[in-house]
């Protein structure tokens, strides 16, 4: 049983963070950044994040597991067909990886290989179904596995997405397909999170709220224009415009979100993008 699943089942408030594999083979900076994480339950390892080609998430997650860090392996449907997804999941299990975040994936258009052919042979619901099958000892065509993987599968959600009912029917499907926890997109809006959490209540699946450390107004505007699913409200951007110390303002906003998550959710997922040293301050 992974520490993440254990802590969530005990009702403990969990903290996850994330690390992106390097563009290249030099793992040292990523391993050093993770070593600086304090008070983290598990570390997400992103999978060609934003459709930018990087070292395999599975390879970095395996290294981290070996070094004693619990990981949440992110796996997207963008770059692999159903055979490759199954192979990678079995490989992940062989390396002791249990926690998964199973995603559709950002479209290739957003990244550094916009001419590539996006795969999307499966969607995130089908990927969850397939994972549930592997955990039962069968592959997608019903063939038995020699050695059955143990996983703790999670899924992603954007609680502020509109239309809400349309977004939420997919959340319900993900739960039916075996999602045991959710990690959310960055949260900026109390009302949207409250509405989402009250809809989640009957489903009884823990939600880990996404907290993004925004460094300045320029970054906020960049996120709004370029990162799917991230929408920083104008009121927050104005806070950055007014302040003399944008990083301190970003820290304050992140802390407010953590407080909100402690009230409504079962954990926080911290996206600090190079400012890992600020994690203790965000959690204070």
């Amino acid at each position, binding site marked *: 049983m992974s520490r993440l699943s254990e802590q969530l089942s005990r009702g403990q408030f969990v903290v996850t963070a994330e690390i992106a594999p390097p563009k290249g083979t030099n793992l040292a900076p990523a391993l050093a950044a993770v070593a600086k994480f304090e008070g983290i339950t598990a570390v997400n390892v992103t999978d060609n994040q934003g459709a930018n080609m990087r070292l395999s998430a599975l390879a970095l997650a395996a290294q981290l597991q070996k070094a004693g860090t619990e990981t949440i392996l992110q796996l997207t*449907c*963008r770059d692999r067909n*159903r055979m490759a997804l199954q192979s990678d999941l079995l490989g992940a299990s062989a390396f002791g990886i249990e926690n998964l975040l199973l*995603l*559709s*994936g*950002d*479209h290739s*258009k*957003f990244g550094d290989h916009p001419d590539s052919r*996006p795969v*999307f*042979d*499966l*969607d*995130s*619901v*089908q990927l969850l*179904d*397939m994972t549930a099958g592997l955990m039962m000892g069968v592959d*997608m065509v019903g063939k038995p596995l020699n050695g059955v993987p143990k996983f703790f599968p999670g899924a*992603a*959600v*954007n609680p502020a*997405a*509109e*239309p809400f*009912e*349309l*977004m939420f*029917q*997919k959340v319900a*499907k993900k739960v*039916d*397909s075996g999602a045991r926890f959710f990690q959310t*997109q960055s949260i900026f809006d109390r009302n949207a999170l409250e509405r989402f959490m009250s809809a989640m209540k009957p489903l009884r699946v823990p939600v880990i709220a996404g907290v993004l450390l925004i460094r300045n107004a320029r970054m906020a505007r960049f996120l709004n224009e370029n990162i*799917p*699913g991230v*929408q920083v409200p104008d009121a927050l951007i104005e806070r950055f415009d007014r302040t003399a110390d944008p990083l301190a303002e970003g820290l304050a906003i992140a802390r407010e979100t953590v407080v909100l998550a402690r009230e409504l959710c079962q954990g926080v997922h911290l996206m600090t993008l190079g400012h890992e040293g600020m994690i203790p301050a965000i959690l204070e």
Partner: protein
Amino acid sequence: MIISKLKPLDELQQALAEFDKLFLVGCAACATACKSGGEEEIFKLQEWLVTLEKDVTGSVVIDEACHIMRAARDLRHHKNAVQSAEAVMVLACGSGVQSISSNVDKRVVGGLNSMFLGNVRRFGHYEEMCSLCGDCILNETAGICPVTTCAKGLLNGPCGGMKDGHCEVDADIECAWRLIYERLQGQQRHGVFARRVPPKNWSRRRQPGRYQLNKGS
């Protein structure tokens, strides 16, 4: 119809560099309708080729260039003009080009890029609504195809990139899943939302496609 458009002229000029005498072929079906390979475009092409000091030995607009036997027949009617050319230049979709290339010994230069199976919104405005996947789900999705009109071809609802009901890939495009959802709501039925849609059977879209009406497969 198949939507096609003229290749960039510099690319064509390069492809034609080694030829001085050309026979031109257009198509009276899709390429005529979307103004890429009808009489008018063949005429314009001829004018352009003259500026490049090429000889045009003759031309024909075939009823349906994708009809292999009909293309053979029409080319036979222009046998001498075809024979005196060094290459045949074709303004038709990729299917049309291959009807021609399988019927003549000459080098064949395709002048168009084939883009998609398109619906006509109004004159000159084409939209892809069907991607010929061989495994149609339209009866459950209120007649809106997510395989084609969702940028990721998702089958169980919108991705996390949906922003105010629009697509993450192009903010001008409405999310296919929002449109499906709203139309189903209007029809007061759940349709595709009533079940988890299993992975698609891509074996129905075998490449290359083959189908014989009398055999039913």
